[in-house]
């Protein structure tokens, strides 16, 4: 894996390399060589090395662009994201003093509050107040709306959960929520390297979800979707409900005319593919189908899109790394690419992307606003 392959639609491979001094250890090839060096005892762990290992968004673009496939399994021949996660796990377990304390605080918050952000357990039900939604534990429903910790972490983001619930209610989807009992999926913990804790959460959650008797889990967060759909395959008990991100549900609701869409103001919008949804789950067409179906929305594409999308910068715990400065820098490149195509709206489907792109847009005083796709749908069914 060389990390050099620039072709049509691929301006560069590694957003971290692009926003740092760019030595080999800042991107996949160097990290892989370092992993070997650590295993073979050729290099010693250090704080500087810990910083290098945590400076990765786990976006997977290096794997996608390399394209090397294990002929037996069809998987990526070199799974950089797994290698980086494993190195992080090693540092957390054996050299915790060199790991940024902010990561350790995420893990202690998880143990204390069952979410990475130190939110009180009741924070997860605040958004649903006065909505009279079913509680999945008491009233079994075919669909569980899984909001996720990050969506519940601020008032602004949590309106998204409210909008999603209202869209689903409008479309007569029979669903329930877990409210304050909604657990953390374990994605953040796994990405920053606490594999053991993530596994523990996965096993517990699988039992919980299976006990609810629902057929499907619908998430609002790309990270949760990827974790539940892909990483949970490793759990001892098989997760029974099928996992969907809401962008997979929305086109069906629109196509079946369960949502009456009305003309709102016209908007030139471009879609930012979250890495978890795109490269990790292959979901590219559905959000575009939604945007194309929204009256007044004119979907324009950026140069790097779909599997070539450059990460927003917030993946892999990077919002925490160096207080988010590197993530923000990477995010600015994503916003600039939206400005370049004349977009008035930069639309995504992941709260991590949204927060980071929002911060970057503010920093740039960008002429385009950042939206979650749920915002645009909710607007056009006149909920808001």
């Amino acid at each position, binding site marked *: *894996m*060389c990390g*050099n*392959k*620039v*072709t*049509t639609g691929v301006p*560069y491979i590694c957003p971290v390399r692009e926003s740092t*001094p*760019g*030595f*080999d*250890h800042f991107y996949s*090839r*160097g*990290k892989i*060589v*370092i992993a*070997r*060096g650590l295993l073979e005892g*050729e*290099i*010693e762990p*250090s704080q*500087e*090395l810990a910083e*290098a290992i945590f400076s990765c968004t786990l976006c997977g673009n290096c794997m996608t662009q*390399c*394209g*090397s*496939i294990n*002929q037996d399994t069809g998987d990526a*021949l070199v799974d950089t994201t797994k290698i980086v996660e494993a190195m992080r796990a090693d540092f957390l377990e054996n050299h915790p003093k060199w790991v940024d304390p902010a990561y350790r605080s995420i893990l202690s918050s998880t143990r204390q509050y069952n979410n990475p952000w130190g939110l009180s357990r009741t924070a997860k039900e605040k958004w649903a107040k006065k909505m009279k939604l079913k509680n999945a534990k008491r009233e079994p429903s075919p669909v569980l709306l899984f909001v996720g910790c990050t969506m519940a972490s601020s008032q602004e983001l949590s309106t998204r959960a409210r909008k999603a619930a209202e869209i689903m209610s409008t479309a007569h989807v029979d669903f329930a929520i877990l409210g304050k009992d909604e657990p953390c999926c374990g994605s953040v913990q796994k990405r920053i390297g606490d594999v053991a804790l993530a596994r523990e959460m996965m096993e517990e959650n699988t039992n919980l979800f299976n006990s609810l008797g629902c057929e499907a889990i619908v998430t609002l967060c790309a990270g949760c979707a990827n974790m539940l759909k892909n990483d949970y395959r490793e759990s001892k008990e098989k997760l029974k409900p099928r996992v969907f991100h809401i962008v997979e549900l929305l086109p069906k609701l629109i196509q079946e005319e369960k949502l009456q869409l009305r003309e709102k103001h016209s908007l030139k919008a471009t879609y930012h593919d979250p890495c978890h949804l795109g490269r990790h789950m292959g979901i590219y067409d559905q959000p575009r189908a939604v945007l194309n179906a929204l009256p007044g929305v004119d979907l324009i594409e950026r140069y790097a899109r779909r599997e070539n999308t450059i990460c927003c910068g917030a993946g892999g715990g990077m919002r925490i790394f160096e207080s988010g400065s590197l993530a923000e820098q990477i995010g600015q490149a994503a916003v600039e690419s939206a400005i370049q195509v004349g977009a008035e709206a930069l639309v995504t489907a992941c709260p991590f992307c949204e927060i980071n792109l929002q911060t970057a847009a503010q920093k740039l005083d960008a002429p385009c606003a950042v939206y979650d796709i749920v915002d645009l749908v909710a607007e056009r069914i006149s909920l808001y």
Partner: protein
Amino acid sequence: MHSKKLLRSLQEIVGKDFATTDRFATFAYSQDTSVFGGTRAETVVRPGSTEEVSRIMTLAHQQRIPVVVRGGGSSVYGQPQGLPGSNLLLDMTRMNTIIDFNPENMTVTTQAGIIMGKLQHACNQAGFYIFTPSAPVHTVSLGGWMSGAAGGAGIWREVMHLTVVLPNGTIVKTGGGPGTNVNQPLYYNRHLGGPDFTGLFIGDGGSFGIKTEATIRLVGLPHVTRARIVEFSTLEKVLELILRHVKRVDPHPFNPLLVFGPGAMETFIPGSGEKGKFTVMGIMQGHTIKEMEAKLDTFDALVAEMHAERNPALDAMTDAMSTSREGEGGMEMFGLDFFNGLGLPAWLPFNMPRASFHTTYPKLIEWREKRLEEATRKGFECRSRFEFFTPGDQCYLSGEVDAFFKDSDDPELKEFVRTMIFDFQRYTHELGFIDVYNQGVMSTLNAHYWSLGFRTLYHTVKSTLDPHGILNPGLWF
């Protein structure tokens, strides 16, 4: 181990963030994409300009510090080893800016650390491209390509000028217009005004100087591409076709022919290799449909006259390829992803005269098969073969007879592949050919076959330009 004082001096030149002695950071350069490995360095520096490179080399020259230069790190035969324990490694990929795009003069001047894919893409966007004959070179740096002759050396004649930093820090600009070879602002003729010093630095393996900038001639991007794929039962027929083709037209840059052996076709389309046929792909490129169709008609007439066989499956492939270009020019897009999935490669490239090809090519295949039998006895599984060649120009053919192994962590497999690659090149030398790359371990092999006169000339030039032998030491000898 380098001193802190040296690090501080380097940081003063390139900026604090762009020089490091961190062990893990330098270790990351100890491997490249080849099975032969990278460079063990004490310090790694990422210069951003010719002036910075010049100041670094002045310092290294004064203090006699060995300097190893690295481009894209995507070699076939490994990086220069330098003097492990003392190496200062220059990672040139920060120098990736296109300096001047001159559509009127049809040249592009760029920093030499640029990755070819990026350069090619920028050219494509402007309606041009840089012809690269026979290898997927998207991942190599321009400087590495020119130094190491990656990709069959086809770009060499298109290089109009080089800015080179000599081992003592002197900046030299080669090429130019009549009357001056120094500071000529518009580089449009490599040969006039003085000796062709541009050529001196091409294929030098990076041992005479560090290429920091280059001006390259562009060709117009052909907007229409179609391929015609036909089969021949014998190598002789293929060679006759090539001769008749190159007699009519220069295969560069718009009329390439690619020939695939049975092993390659088996890899493309399982079952097809059994027929033992050679498959020829004529790529017809034109600036208009009419131009392309005229070329296609001519080529069709030629292959019909030679009783080439058509095959519906191959015709379907032709159609698919014709629509998949999406504006990218040249052949360099071909096959890059395809190779990635085949396994651990034993790259076995060659450059051979077209005239004796019919007798030598079968020997290369025979050699490979013997080695693969040995591999099987050792328990190594060869998963694919890939034979391919193309006319590099009128007189030579450039190609590969690769084998791909099921990859594993077994160090014996890696060693087997290393030995196979090395022995293959030794064998081609014995057959009277030259190696394709002036790179890594093969530079030493090439130098072994130099005549006394050539060797003396090399040493004279090297010792004049680099009296302390600090630049890429040990590359050729």
